[in-house]
Every structure is written in C-alpha cells, then in structure tokens.
C-alpha cells in the first residue's frame, strides 16, 4: 500500500516538475498579438478589444463554441424530456421569494441588457448577458412561477437555434460581395456584431435555462410523490 502511495507521490512530483519546467522554458512569443489587435481595432466595429477578438478577428472560434453549446443541449434534450413547470413540484412555496422576485426580475433584465450593450466598449457581452438572463429563468422556476411559453417545444427549439443560425446567416450573407466567410464590411461591422450578440444572448440564456429545466420534478416525500402520481392521469 505504501509503495503505491510512494509511486503516486513520485509521479505527481515528476509531473509538477515537468510542468514548472515547461512554463519556465517556454519559447518567447514570435509576434506581439496585443499590438496587432490594438492596431486592427479601428477595423473591428467595436471599441473593446476582447469583443473585437471574440466576434470579429476570431469569430470562427465563437461560432464553433455556440455550435458546441447547441449540440450539448440537443443531447441533453434527447436524454430527458423537459419537466413542465408546475408550482407544486418546485417545493419552494414561499411568498417572500415571490415578493423579492418582483423586485429583482426587472433589475436582472436591465443588468443583462446593460452587459450586452456594454460589451462593445467595456467588459461584458453575449455570454455574460446570457448567463444573467438564465439566472432570472432559474429564479423564476425556483419561485414556482409558471412559464408556459417555455413548454412550447417548437418555440423553445427555435430560440435555442436562433443564435447559431443568425451567426451562420450573417457570416454567409457577407460573402455575397466576394469576401471570405465572416468578414464583416467595415461600415456595418458594429451593427452586425450587435445583432449577432443579441441573438446569441437569447440562445445562451435559453440553453442554460433548458438545461436547468431538464432536472426531475421535486418531490421529497415518497408518499407525496405517490399521491402526485395518483392524481396525474
């Protein structure tokens, strides 16, 4: 037993030393990427370098990221059916939570909108705004507020795919004048990026909410669950 522990410790030590050596011995970067980004900023259509990289200079990466997110939620949807939002299944019948929600919800929506809008000139953007939107959805579900429109499968799927489809569509449309895929024309770059980010925010928010909605209904007490089953047709 002690021999196994000793060999594991030695292995860990060896990997740590190798990693440290790799970090210390890495080759110097051959080109100054921050400088290249800064010099190309006027062509990006936005003022924040990170948004410029994510949605203009390396928008292909972001496109694939969104595709992976969509794939993940499609697999999750295939494995489980979304649970309908029923207040009696939330287990949090708390009037205080609902009262707080009434105050918080507008604030959360404003923050999501601000993060999306702020993305063009300061930290923020579609991913952050989308996750704040999803937080609002999670709170709504915990408070037992029924959101019937989320149960509309066709609408939900359209919302999930909206971001990727808009991104792809704009990427393909800009090819008409004869430029490569996802090369936005300078005059409209800012608008196009904002449109893409808006749809991405909606899709990312819906993706995260639908992942949360795939969790099973809440019934702590087995007898209660049986009663619920008996009531269900």
């Amino acid at each position, binding site marked *: 037993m002690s021999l196994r522990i000793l060999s594991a410790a030695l292995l860990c030590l060896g990997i740590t030393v190798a990693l440290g050596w790799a970090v210390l011995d890495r080759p110097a970067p051959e080109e100054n990427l921050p400088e290249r980004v800064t010099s190309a900023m006027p062509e990006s259509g936005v003022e924040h370098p990170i948004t410029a990289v994510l949605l203009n200079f390396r928008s292909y990466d972001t496109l694939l990221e969104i595709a992976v997110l969509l794939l993940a939620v499609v697999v999750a949807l295939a494995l489980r059916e979304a649970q309908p939002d029923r207040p009696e299944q939330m287990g949090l019948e708390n009037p205080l939570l609902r009262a707080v929600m009434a105050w918080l919800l507008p604030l959360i929506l404003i923050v999501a909108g601000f993060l999306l809008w702020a993305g063009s000139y300061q930290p923020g953007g579609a991913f952050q705004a989308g996750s704040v939107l999803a937080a609002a959805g999670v709170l709504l579900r915990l408070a037992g507020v029924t959101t019937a429109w989320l149960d509309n499968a066709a609408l939900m799927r359209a919302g999930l795919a909206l971001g990727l489809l808009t991104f792809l569509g704009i990427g393909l449309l800009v090819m008409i004048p004869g430029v490569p895929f996802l090369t936005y024309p300078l005059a409209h770059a800012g608008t196009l990026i904002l449109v893409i980010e808006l749809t991405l925010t909606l899709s990312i928010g819906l993706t*995260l909410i639908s992942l949360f909605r795939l969790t*099973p209904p809440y019934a702590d007490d087995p007898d209660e669950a049986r009663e619920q*089953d008996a009531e*269900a047709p």
Partner: protein
Amino acid sequence: MPWLDLLLGLTLVVTAALALAARDMFRAVIMFIVFGLLMALAWVRLQAPDIALAEAAIGAGLTGVLLLDTLGYLRRPFGSRVDKPGDRP
C-alpha cells in the same frame, strides 16, 4: 496588494482541496461555489474582468445551482425518483 494576492491564491488552493476532500457532498458543492467566487476575484486581479464575469455567473452561479439540484435528487429515497409524472410502474 501582493499580500492580498498571496492570500487569495492560498485560499483558492485550500477551498479546492476542501471541495475535493469533503466527505459530505453538500459541503463539497458549497466549497465549489466558494471556489468559483474566489476564482472570479482572482480573474479580476489578473485584469481579466470579462472572464471574471463569466466565471461568477456560470462557474459559481449556474453550475452551483445545477449541482445542488442534482444533490437534492440523489438524496431522495430511491422509490420517489420520478423521471416523468406517471412514468413509474
């Protein structure tokens, strides 16, 4: 500020170790959420506010909620785990 950064780094390692070593799953999940929030602070200190925002919202917030939800599901008695209403024999 270097002392604060050192403290932050050490706390990160300690919370990560606590999350991994915790016997009680609930404690592990809470430690994971604490780790995520501290990680967001570390990203701010590394001058990466974009990643800090994403880490706080997705890493600590939504993942924490999903983990807690899963934990609540696992703690239920086996017979009451229902996939779909009316699905159980």
